[in-house]
Structures are given as C-alpha cells and as structure tokens.
C-alpha cells in the first residue's frame, strides 16, 4: 500500500524528519491561498499520486509566483497523469501539494528498505544525480553506501560513522544525518513500512536536512496492525476487479490477452502464463486461487474471467491439494456458469485430490468443457480455441 507524498510527510514529521513548508490543495483557489500563506519566494506544485516518476511526466512544476502556482495547479488538478510507474491511461490528480522551494547546498538519495538475504533493514545513501534512480541503483551499486540495521536499530559499531564519513560531511552535518536515519528507521518499524524513499534529501546552507520528497509504502500483510493508515492507502482508481478478487481469497492481475485463466497456486499460475505464451497464446489474466477460498469465492473469481470482454476461452489448470480438493474448484466453476449469461468454452486440466468427484460434478453441471489429461494439451487446446478453432 503506497501512501501519497503529503500523507507520508505528515507521518514522517512525527519522527523528526523535516520537509519543506507546504499545504495541500484540491482546487485552484486552495492552491492560490496556500501560496499566499507560504509567502514570497518560489514554489513547487506537486501532483499527489500513488506512483513515482512524476518529475519526468510533468507532475512536479516550479512556480515563481502565486500566479504561476495558480496556472500549474490548474494544469494538474482534475487531469490524468501517466508516469513510467502508472498504467498508460494514468491516474487522476485530485490533490496537489504546494511547497516552498528550498535552497540546497547538496542533495542526496536516501532509502530505507529490506535486505532479503541478510533479513535486515537496509539504508541506502548516495549523492543525488540526474537520471533514473532505479537504473543507477542497479547499474552503479558502488555509487551508493549501505547500512544494515536490526529491528531495534543496532548495527556494527562504527557503521553509522563510516556511512556518514563516506558522504564527506562535517561533524554537525553527520549528526543531523544520523538523526534523520534513525528517525526513518523508527518510522519504518512502527509503520510496518516496506519502503521509505527520500529523493532528494536536501542539505541546506544552515546544515538542516530536509526531505523534499517522500515515498512511503506499507506492508499489506501488516495492515491489520494499522487500521488508521487504511484510509490513507485507499486508492479510488485501483483496479476494482483485483480488489474484488482479494476479498474472495484470490490473487488476480488483469492482463491484455484473450485466454482467461483459473489456477490454484501462485507458482502454477505463473507457469500457466509461461506455457500459454510458449504455445503462442496471450493470457487475459493471472489467477492464484488461495487455499482458503471456498467454492463461492471461486465462483466470484470465475465470474471475473467471464466478465472480461476480451476473454475468448477459460483455461482451468488445477492441482487439487490437501486443503482445496479438485471438486471445490469445479463446484465454483459450476456456480459461476449457472449465474452467468456469458458462457465461454472451458478447457480444463484437473488432477490431484478428489479429481474423480470433480469429474462427476462437471458432468452434473453440464459445462461446455474439454477435459485434458495434461497441462500442455490443455494449454494448446485453449490457444487453438482463442485463435478461432472449434471448441
């Protein structure tokens, strides 16, 4: 769950992480008022989106006067903005953040994240440079210093000092950076973050550290500990289909092909996408029916495939496990087809626990299905149907 920059900055301010003076505005009038309250000087008008790469997409605009702020806010508010991290259609800008521009002596990239191999919290610091930060992190890892912290903030003695030294800072500046890092670490743990990224983190002439931007993502698995953050993470434009699937114990990702998939298990779901592509077809979705899904949940998942106008065929690839035998899935399939007017041809491969019972249920439901004995046969059959072959 990614938060908006303006919400992230409010949360981080509780951990002594400073950001430029600023106000949120939802209209041009509010933007003008915000600029007047901030006083003279220059400003930034920043589209508030749950996606990065706003700068190159024109979502962050410099303004030298209140009049400029009005123009920039008018150009952003209510418009769709597409960045490298949104879908092509973009996201609607409903809020802008008006901030006072900060005179910086130096600018840094600072991120707090998780190192999966070390099972530690990791802090990454580098001098700000032009270019795509993710590409720089990948291609020039040595340009960044890294620090590894435990949950309690412990690290090897000297690590923080040498980390700050690597940035070539004065004693006073290093102390300020240390406070910012430990503030972010505390925020990271208390908010169950999966990533906090400050890019850029500015060092001013007076030696203050200012977060000019803030990206904060919260671990979805820890949402039960943070009911207060749920409204901040709510995204009105998030894929309704995928959200609906989550409510029914199904991981679902919409894709742009024409072969709808119903699969139990993430690995088998990924393998099914690969096999469809290898056979020359294009998947309409990824689906991973979790073991906790009931037949009624599965019916909802199947309905999502049937409701997709692009889908021409439904490929069901199921390995019945301990918790979720084959007949539960076929039951869900039958319920969905009984409810739906649109009945796509079905190609299925069901094997594992209770597969015989599943075949009996399939016959009872009288579904338009082709039963295949192995996955590849089922996949090639589905591809042929999608291409206009006979079902």
């Amino acid at each position, binding site marked *: 769950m990614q938060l908006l920059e303006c919400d992230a900055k409010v949360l981080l301010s509780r951990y002594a992480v400073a950001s430029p003076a600023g106000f949120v505005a939802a209209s041009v009038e509010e933007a003008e008022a915000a600029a007047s309250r901030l006083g003279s000087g220059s400003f930034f008008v920043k589209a508030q989106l749950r996606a990065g790469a706003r700068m190159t997409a024109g979502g962050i605009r410099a303004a030298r006067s209140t009049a400029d702020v009005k123009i920039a806010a008018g150009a952003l508010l209510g418009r769709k903005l597409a960045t490298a*991290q949104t879908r092509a259609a973009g996201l609607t800008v409903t809020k802008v953040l008006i901030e006072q521009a900060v005179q910086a002596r130096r600018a840094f990239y600072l991120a707090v994240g*998780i190192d*999966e*191999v070390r*099972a*530690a*919290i990791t802090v990454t610091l580098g001098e700000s440079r032009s270019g795509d930060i*993710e590409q720089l992190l990948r291609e020039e890892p040595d340009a960044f210093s890294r620090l590894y912290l*435990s*949950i309690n903030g412990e690290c090897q003695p000297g690590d923080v000092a040498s980390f700050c030294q690597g940035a070539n800072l004065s004693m006073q500046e290093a102390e300020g950076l240390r406070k910012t890092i430990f503030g972010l670490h505390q925020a990271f*743990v208390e908010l*169950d973050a*999966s990533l906090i990224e400050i890019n850029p983190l500015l060092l001013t002439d007076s030696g203050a550290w200012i977060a000019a931007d803030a990206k904060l993502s919260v*671990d*979805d*698995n*820890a949402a*039960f*500990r943070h009911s207060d953050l749920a409204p901040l993470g709510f995204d009105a434009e998030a894929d309704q289909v995928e959200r609906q699937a989550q409510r029914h114990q199904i*991981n679902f*990702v919409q*894709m742009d092909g024409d072969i709808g998939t119903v*699969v*139990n*298990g*993430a*690995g*088998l*779901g*990924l*393998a*099914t*996408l*690969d*096999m*469809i*592509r*290898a056979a020359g077809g294009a*998947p309409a979705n*990824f689906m*991973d029916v*979790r*073991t906790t899904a009931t037949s009624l949940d599965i019916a909802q998942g199947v309905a999502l495939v049937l409701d997709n106008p692009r889908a021409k065929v439904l490929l069901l690839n199921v*390995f*019945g*496990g*301990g*918790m979720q035998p084959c007949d539960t899935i076929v039951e869900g399939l039958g319920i969905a087809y009984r409810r739906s007017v649109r009945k796509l041809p079905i190609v299925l491969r069901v*094997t*594992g*626990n209770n597969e015989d019972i599943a075949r009996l249920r399939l016959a009872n439901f009288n579904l338009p299905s082709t039963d295949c004995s*192995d*996955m*590849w046969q089922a*996949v090639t059959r589905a591809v042929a149907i999608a291409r206009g072959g006979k079902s």
Partner: protein
Amino acid sequence: MTVLVDANTRLLCQGMTGWAGTYHTNRMIQYGTNVVAGVTPGKGGRSHLDLPVFDSVAEAVKATGANASAVFVPPAHAAKAMIEAIEAEIPLVVAVTERVPVLDMIRVREALAGSRTRLIGPNSQGVLAPGVCQIGVMATNRARAGSVGVVSRSASLTSEVISQLTAAGLGQSTTIGVGGDPIHGMGFVECLELLLADPQTQAVMLVGEIGGTEEQQAADYIRSVRPAKPIVALVVGENAPARRRMGHAGALIQDAAADVANKVRLLRDAGVIIAPSAHLVGEVMRDLVSKRAA
C-alpha cells in the same frame, strides 16, 4: 535416508485446535506422521484429536519429547509462535502460515541466528518424505518414495513436479517447500547441502521463480561444490506483468523476462539442466537419470 524428517520425527502442532490446524493435523496423522502434541496458549490440559494440548512449546517438548513443530497459527501471531519454538530449541520448525508481515520475519530471523533450529517457511507447503513423514499441507496422493530430492518456492508446482516425477517412474526422497515469502528460513542452498549429502537422494529438482535471489545463490553454491548428482531446475514467471504482486510476495519484479533469463543463465553455467517448461520436468529428469545410469 531422508532429510529433515524421518521415522523418529515427533511432531507438535502450534495452533492445532484451530480449524486449519485440526484439518491438517488429522491429514498428517492419517499419512502416518507421529504427531505427539498440540500447543494453543490458554487451552493447556485439554485433549484434541486424542492428543494432549499444552499452553507452551516448552511444556509440550518436556512432556512428549517432540523434536519438530508445524506452525498453523494465523499471521498476527505466527512470528511469536515461531520464536517460541526457536527458544524452546526445537530442531525443526515448519511454518505454513501465509501473509506474515515481513518485519515480523526479520524478528524471527534475528531469533533464529545462532539457534539450534532449522526453520522452513513461512508460506510453505512443508516437508514430505513419501511413505515416512508429512509435515505440512501438501497433496500426497501422487508422491512415492524414491531418489529425487525436490526443493521449491511454490506449493502448487511442487505437487505438479511430484506427479510428473512419479509418472516418469521416479520416486522422491524428500520434498521441501522453502515458501513464497521474501524473508524465510532455509533457502535453496541449505536444502541443497542436505540433499547432496543424503545417500538416498540421487538427483535434485529445483523449482524457482521470478523475484529474490535464491536461484542466484544456488547457482553460486553449485558452481563451487561441483556436485556429482544431477540437478534439474525450472524457473517460472517470465511472462508476469511488471511490478505486480503475483500471489507470492517474494515474486515481485520489475522485469520478469530479464530476471528469469539471468537465473537460467547462472544455473546453466553452473552445470544445472534447465527444464524448458513446467510440463516437461518429469521427462527431463527421467532422461537425465537414465543417461547417468547408462
């Protein structure tokens, strides 16, 4: 011989009195696993599935000599349960729970460091030594005892792989699910160490996917030890859309095709045979094993 579990495994189940715990404990008992106790805080002294229930892991171990634990505790308390088992010095802990917060897993790994415990999971289907012992939630009807060790990040694909191996006339020594989460207990390398040293295991099947670095680490390890036993790998997910969570939290990636290509290249360079598609793993392993035998 099998690895991690054998006929002397004495299992306790944390969260046994919940419905998932009850269901799976029953299945494991049916399979022949020697389940000796359940642990549910506040329900100590009761009996469930004809087994004694204890308030704590330490009490259960003291009373029953349990040497392995299966964790069926819901996400909010799963890490606490794992840490309790680690502190009670249980040699093997298998965590089935899905959706454990990632910072909780850092806490668990901090407790695990320097301990006597081996942790499998979380978000794992568990460990199966066919015909000997089942700890976990996997399908068992296709599994047969034999000589292929299986290590996998995916529960559903493990069932598929086991089915294909059995159909190809190849039984399994031990199958291990390391789990689909980014931070977990034992990884591919530790599982490979055990399976390559196990006399019953004559070949190893690695089931990988996009995201994380399990496969890269396995490739480094295999390259350094140059094992005599053949290893086959499958890496799925090259057609996953970018930046989307595909069921496994560990399988989140920016460029899936590049990630799979990189993993495949490193594994192949280390001498691993790559199964070109998920439906071919049984055949590839059978051809490889029969070639070695010839």
